[in-house]
């Protein structure tokens, strides 16, 4: 296990910290795009164009729900934390936290 507590200056809020981290991720070389999806499957933040965002959000939301359902069916006290899909061209990573989804598409081979 690692330290999971967050640090921020007294003038920052938790939200700003999250946005900071998101910006950093987006700025990493090789990251194609990031999408934040809320509990209803609607993308609220994205760095990709609209049609791609909607497509990714819809499809991955369904897949995540299915994956979570699978995990919890086996053991209801368990829950899905993240999902990684490695394809030929790039890697799609989905991290879930209380119904919210964070989707990052990365091209790891440089």
């Amino acid at each position: 296990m690692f330290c999971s507590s967050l640090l921020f200056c007294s003038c920052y809020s938790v939200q700003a910290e999250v946005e900071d981290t998101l910006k950093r991720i987006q700025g990493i070389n090789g990251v194609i795009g990031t999408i934040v999806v809320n509990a209803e499957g609607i993308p609220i933040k994205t760095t990709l164009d609209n049609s791609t965002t909607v497509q990714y959000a819809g499809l991955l939301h369904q897949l995540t729900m299915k994956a979570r359902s699978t995990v919890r069916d086996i053991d209801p006290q368990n829950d899905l934390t993240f999902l990684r899909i490695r394809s030929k061209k790039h890697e799609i990573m989905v991290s879930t936290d209380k119904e919210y989804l964070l989707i990052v598409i990365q091209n790891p081979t440089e």
Partner: protein
Amino acid sequence: MAKGVKAIGKKKDEEEGLDTAEGEEWMQGKTLVKPPDQLELTEAELNEEITRVLTANNPNAPQNVVRYSFKEGCYKPIVFVDQMAIHFELEGNLVHKESDEGRRLTAKQAEVDDGGGDERPDNVVIKASKREQKLTNQFNFNERASQTLNNPPRDISCQTEPPPRANFSATANQWEIYDFYTEELQRREKSKEKHEGQFVNKEEDKNKKKMIQAEIQNDDISQLTKAVKIIERMVNQNIFDDVAQDFMYFDDASDEFRGEKGTLLPLWTFQYDKAKSLSVTALCWNHKYNDLFAVGLGSHEFTQQGGGMVLFYTLKNPNYPEFIFNTASGVMCVDIHEHLSYLVAVGLYDGCVAVYNLKKKTDQPIYNSRASSGKHTSAVMQVKWQKDDLDSNHNFISVSAGGRVVSWTLVKHELVFTDIIKLPVIDTIPDDLKDVVPTVGTSLDFHKQKDYSFLVGTEHGKIHKGSKYYSSKFLETYDAHFMTVTRVRWNPFHPDVFISCGWDWMVKIWDQTMKSPVFTFELKTSVTDVAWAPYSSTVFAAVTTDGKVHVFDLNINKYEALCQQKVVSKKTRLLHIEFNPVHPIIIVGDDRGHVTSLKLSPNLRKKPKEKKGQEMPKGPEVEIAKMEQLLSSLR
């Protein structure tokens, strides 16, 4: 031929009349009257006998009735035709008195006769009898019915608004049922609490309301804190995938062919933008979380003093530090508490010591000696946590450039200081200045087992061994180096051995019972730091200002380094080195604020060869024995 009969009859009558005419007056004188259009016939014609036939045929009946015969398929004349001629018809109204109607009529007649002025019972009797007798007539029955007025039917309808409908669909899964039950349980517990504590409720409700509002406001992104962290680490792991694989699995196979020598494989480099102008002044691994380490940033140069930082990096995210603390002045030393890994003691250039709590989400230290009266007047060179004292208060010890060794105790909200000892001034300083010119203490280390015993290195090259219990004098002084002692450390296994290094290019290994060093190594430039390996009592590594890391294993080679590798670019001086307590990696800090992690190749981590048939004892005793063996060979 009725007419013929009638004519004959009339003629007979007329003849009879004529015959009897003689008898009556109006019959006399009758002459034959001829109608004007009578036929004029001759005598012969008059005497002609005309036969008249009397038949019973009806002259009006048809004579040539033809009917179609289906049997023969043609029209056939009907020979026998009805010959009856009806001359007169009159319907009578006589009814037989024995018939039904006759009886009825007679009864009625009798009633009418007896009708007026009779007694009632007779009437009733008669009526009753009449009723019995009343029978319906097939031909003449008249049922009289009367109908009330039917009100015209009206349709009245009203329509209500249809109830609102919504589509509902759900799935019933194992986990949905589980979720529901846990929620139900919580609800019940809450209601129990409400029943029990009702006064406290109001406050709680207010807080809850605030909480709920805050939650709704923040439901946007702050939910994602954990998710974002994980993703960042995953992305970094993908980028540095080969490094991570090397870190875990790579063991340089070519070491077999290199003889004794080993290599250092560079892994991740940690750098922070805002720390570019600062140099690494301290490194410390976290003992509980083996991937977390602290970096103290500041400046050794007297002239270049600015702010400082303490950064915490994890190997899982080489891109960005986990924790960032800004300090007012440069950080000179950092120490993480061995058991409570969230307590961090920091010594600053301006003489302050501060304690940070990683669990708290603030930038400010929880304790600061700024206001304390016993604070150091000059830079704090080393801090070290101690075991909790008798009152279970945490405490640590610091040594400063002012020559004081001070113990600080965390009591409630402040730091309480206790002077332990003052470093002795060297003899070269004239007596009247002895109080003024302090002896700069540069390094401090406590014995692993006997933690009251400590070593202090000074700027003058001496190493003093002291004890917490003796505050007036040092137990022992070693003339270690010609120049500043940059580091002194006890051996983690052997209780008598310690190592020291200094700017005079030397690394010396001592036995505390002996005044002169057991081993001496000369590295080509100033040695800035030296560290023992946690896995072996005979392995240590040193860093020098020319950017090289030197790794020695006394068990294998007593005179030479197994590895002398330059790990940073030109003109970068390496300042600190630390071994990871668990993994075979080391981190080195340089004067550009960068920290580089390196993996030790297998040759540098060798365990002594097993003799055939002998079981290999494990544990610190082996290490001690190893060292002892070495030492005894030199005595």
